[in-house]
């Protein structure tokens, strides 16, 4: 399988004549620790990122919102369980209700599931250990705001870093999700095969990321915001953000 040389490919996708920058909000909870990485990724791509403190009741004008990784509220009770009660989450729910684009990463995925904005739940890795390594992701549905710019058959090499990343949803939920194209990414081998041993945490069906039925809220356990520059290991994460940017441009 030929892999696109990501950084070269991406550098040729130019924002032709588009001087305007999109505005991404990055929520900040006490204990978020990958918030600055989300900001970094957005800025590397030439757009604007703003922190939104958890006590804010309004998001302000934003084109999209990122819910970052970390250990919000120390993972007390359950990962993401307390964050969902933050004032900012009500604003986020409204934003999502009105079709706003939301992407959650790692703890962000956990928060969105706890808040009922995404189906399923994240539980302890089957290994019972924290897992930090680079994995390959295969895109299952390329027809979403989060995946539309990802070339066919493009594997994305991105890092994971989580202790509670095992995605679970019961049989009927999974069937529904599958029929609505809500499964976005799965863990795969370097050859692109979705196999058990490519799965770092025991997620059902090797699921790494999902979206809601309306297709405007998505999340994944791996960290695309930590894979936007070859210098730090991989630039493949850019495909997901490029998809969002492309979607926002198309919507204008």
């Amino acid at each position, binding site marked *: 399988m030929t892999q696109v040389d990501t950084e070269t490919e991406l550098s040729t996708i130019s924002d032709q004549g588009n001087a305007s920058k999109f505005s991404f909000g990055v929520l900040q909870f006490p204990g978020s620790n990958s918030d600055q*990485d989300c900001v970094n990724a957005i800025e590397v791509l030439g757009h604007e990122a703003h922190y939104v403190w958890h006590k804010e009741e309004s998001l302000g004008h934003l084109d999209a919102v990122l819910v970052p990784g*970390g250990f919000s509220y*120390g993972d007390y009770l359950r990962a993401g369980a307390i964050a969902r009660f933050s004032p900012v989450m009500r604003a986020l729910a409204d934003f999502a209700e009105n079709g706003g684009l939301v992407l959650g990463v790692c703890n962000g995925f956990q928060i969105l599931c706890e808040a009922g904005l995404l189906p399923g739940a994240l539980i302890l890795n089957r290994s019972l250990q924290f897992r930090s*390594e680079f994995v*390959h992701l295969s895109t299952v549905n390329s027809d979403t705001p989060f995946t539309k710019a990802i070339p066919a058959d493009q594997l994305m*090499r991105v890092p994971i*870093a989580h202790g509670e990343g095992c995605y679970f949803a019961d049989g009927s939920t999974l069937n529904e999700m599958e029929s609505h194209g809500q499964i976005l990414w799965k863990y795969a081998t370097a050859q692109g095969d979705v196999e058990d041993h490519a799965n770092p945490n025991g997620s059902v069906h090797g699921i790494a990321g999902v979206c809601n039925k309306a297709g405007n809220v998505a999340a994944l356990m791996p960290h695309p915001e930590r894979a936007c520059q070859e210098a*730090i*290991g991989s630039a493949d994460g850019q495909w997901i953000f490029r998809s969002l940017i492309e979607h926002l441009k198309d919507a204008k």
Partner: protein
Amino acid sequence: MSDPKITPELIRQHNLTDEEYQLILKQLGREPNITELGIFSVMWSEHCSYKNTRSLLKGFPTRSSNVLVPAGEENAGVIDIGDGLAVAFKIESHNHPSAVEPFQGATTGVGGIIRDIFTMGARPICAVNSLRFGKLDSPEVRRLFRGVVAGIGHYGNCFGIPTVAGEVYFDESYEGNPLVNAFSLGVLRHEQIARGAAQGIGNPVFYVGPATGRDGLAGAAFASQDLTEESAEQQRGAVQVGDPFMEKLCMEACLELLATGAVAGIQDMGAAGLTCSTCETAARGGTGIEIELDKVPQRGPGMSPYEIMLSESQERMLIIVHKGREDDVKRIFDKWDLPWAEIGFVTDTGQMVVKHHGEVVADLPAAKLADEAPIYHREAIEPEYLKETRGLDLHSIQDTTDVEGDLHALMAWPTIASKNWVYRQYDYTVRNGTMVHPGSDAAVIRVKPDSLPVLSEDSPNRDVIPPEKYLAMSVDGNGAYVYLDPYEGGKIAVAEAARNLACSGAVPLGTTDNLNFGNPHNPELFWQLKEAVRGLADACTYFEAPVTGGNVSLYNQNPKGAIDPTPTVAMVGLIEDPSHITTQWFKNEGDVILLIGESLDSDDPYQGLGGSAYLKVRHGLKKGLPPRCDLTVEKNIHNALRGWIAQGAIQSAHDCSEGGLAVALGECCISGESARHTPHLIGAEIQLKRAEQDRLDALLFGETQGRIIISVPSVFVGKITGQAEVMNIPVEKIGTVGGKTLSIVVDKHQFDWDLSKLHDAWFNSIDQIMES
């Protein structure tokens, strides 16, 4: 309820000698009460006062043109890295707590070192650790190992800094006495350096962070004594409990507060908690401090002054604030929902005064407590055991007849085997700064604008975007070498760290050391310490990598005996240009493999096998003399390598250490990987020259120092060998990169290893032991 009477028994229980008690009487001019006795016992413990080692540590080089805050002045040293930026770093141990409660002992070790960094005003951006355990066939050792690694991961991962490098050794001498040495590095602008002095008479003193409880009570005193069988039960209360989430909030709040200019002095509450922070800040400021314990947030009712002063509850900071700026503390700490309390003020009496319910319960001279602990010059006697170890006759050991089996055994030996079981539990990508992940000779991280603490609003540098900086880090320390020859072993620990930095393209900037030794009252063990420090000091001076601070951990022994004397050395280096960043695995078929350095030291009677992994693993011996370390040769080699790296000639660089040349070659072939289950195996065809007197096992597995394996595109070979000749550095072509096997030819013998099998043995060794 009245205070207990001070009896000789009570004095002994506080780990103070009769002479020390007499000194206390002399300093105070009266008897201390129980709270004051407790305060002296922790401040004068080895852990806090370094009373047994201060005289030795004076030998360390601590200055260079880059040093902004030298060792001994503050909680961590600070070194300039150019463009107005600086780094603060240090290593510290948490050995005794980890022996008793591995998870919390290790986790709070990480928490403690992180606090030492942000108390300097720096934002911590990475962690590194150095670990020692007994042999993994013991279930108890596996329990400690599992707990320590989980504890380290828990703190770093939750706090949000990448744990990027480390080392783990397994040896029976550490059974029952694990070593957990935790390092952290932070960055800041020169103008952001914060000091831990109680400045300004009348300035309010604030306590920030979670409430004080009974955990960790007298942890400093616990660390300053031998472990016994009763330790586990009796001392569990002395193990602190960590909350990395709390510390993350505390750090963000402190850095925000520092940016307001409201802070006159700041110090973390680490060992000896409230006691140490109040008395040290007063001593540094040449002032006094008065605090009222009723104002200190407490976790439970009825805590005594003794308990409050000696508690080592974590994640607490002491902040001296400029009078009139109290509202900044309240505003910022309320924003982060962190407890805070105004507990006292700075005085001009030079006394540390502690009140409880309005009554004075301690009134002690701060400077005497902090700086005038007794200094001991312990007796040092060359150990008897050296007669036996140096009596090893190499001829009594048969040369190898199973080279293939030897390499397999060494690569699978837990000390040499891949540590991925460990570092896959550590987040190493958070903060988007890690450029060389765990698995190579040194970690490399980048410093970028968001690595820095927030700047004050009226800073002239507010709109200045500093250039990216590239830092390399390595931690090293071979206890077996130090056991067999402390001076040489000390030198080698530093030389190896410098060599690892050179292999990544970095120039050493500074060093931090953790001295892990046994009971200093034992003259033979003290001799080990003295000689090792001498070796470390000589080498640090030579490499111009001053010691910026560090830690001494003594009493690492139990009834079975003392640990191998183990100084761990963490070195930080600067890489000029990101294109110089070099990793250890072979890259391209056809590249030429060169060996820099002499393959065998003709002056070494042990041909590099003394104290070697091979001697240990294949012959069960820890004997001989370690290989000689020639600092001049090392420095020349490191400089030459950096020059070639800068010329773009070097595809990979890897130094020879445990297991010698063959292990290093194996690692070059199999240690590259890009993702889960995606190793990049690349073979090599090696031809080695052997002189008649060279043993085969010494040639392949001897640990002769000053050797680095490099792979270069063939077009560069002539240039390198030519330049090497001019510089009088031995460089020899030993082979070519390519194929699916590692093949080594010596004389007429050819030895081959299938790369998948070798990789499997090396990569999965520890996983198989721990997960089956």
